[in-house]
């Protein structure tokens, strides 16, 4: 069990209804955390269309979560 800060952007932020939240989770890695949030909040984007950043750096879905991590979920980008 760890407590993490979660950030959502763009379409994910609107679906979740908040830009960020702190939460306790039993998810071991970033992928499991997304799956947990997706089913809890009915997020529509599947994991393969989302990227994750931990502590302001891109990270693999298999990254283990540590107490206090800031985990950001990024929908498909559209810069330019």
């Amino acid at each position: 069990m760890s407590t993490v800060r979660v950030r959502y952007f763009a379409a994910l932020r609107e679906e979740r209804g908040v830009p960020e939240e702190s939460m306790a989770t039993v998810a071991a890695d970033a992928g499991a955390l997304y799956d947990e949030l997706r089913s809890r909040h009915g997020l529509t984007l599947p994991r393969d269309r989302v990227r994750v950043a931990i502590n302001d750096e891109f990270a693999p879905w298999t990254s283990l979560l540590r107490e206090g991590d800031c985990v950001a979920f990024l929908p498909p980008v559209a810069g330019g």
Partner: protein
Amino acid sequence: MGFALQATAVDPQGLSAALSDVRAGGLVTFEGRVRDHSGKRAVTALEYEAFSPLAQKEGDRILAEALEKFGILAASCTHRTGRLAPGDIAVWVGVAAEHRGDAFTACRYVIDEIKARLPIWKKEHFAQGEAEWVNCAAPPIK
């Protein structure tokens, strides 16, 4: 010089001037502007949202890659955030090089990577009142 995210209007003249170098024979620039349509729908505004700390790092990395890969003297890129109207500059890239071929290739590289990698999202606001995040529609159920 370098990469910048900014909430205010982009100034191409100032950005070009910052790249001027008497060793440079060529300056190639790319200006991306908000179009007044998307597909067949009229666009009234675009809203850009950025994950700032990571967008800044990724922008810096892209410019560093361009300087390493190509024979160029200097490169810069500025990307807007916030609400833009059709005709506004959303992104600006400039590359100065001794030879024009390198400047073209590097400028194209930077804008392609910026579009593919920068954690920035845009929401299109349409004349009919609806709005959509670009690229974020959920996939159809299979």
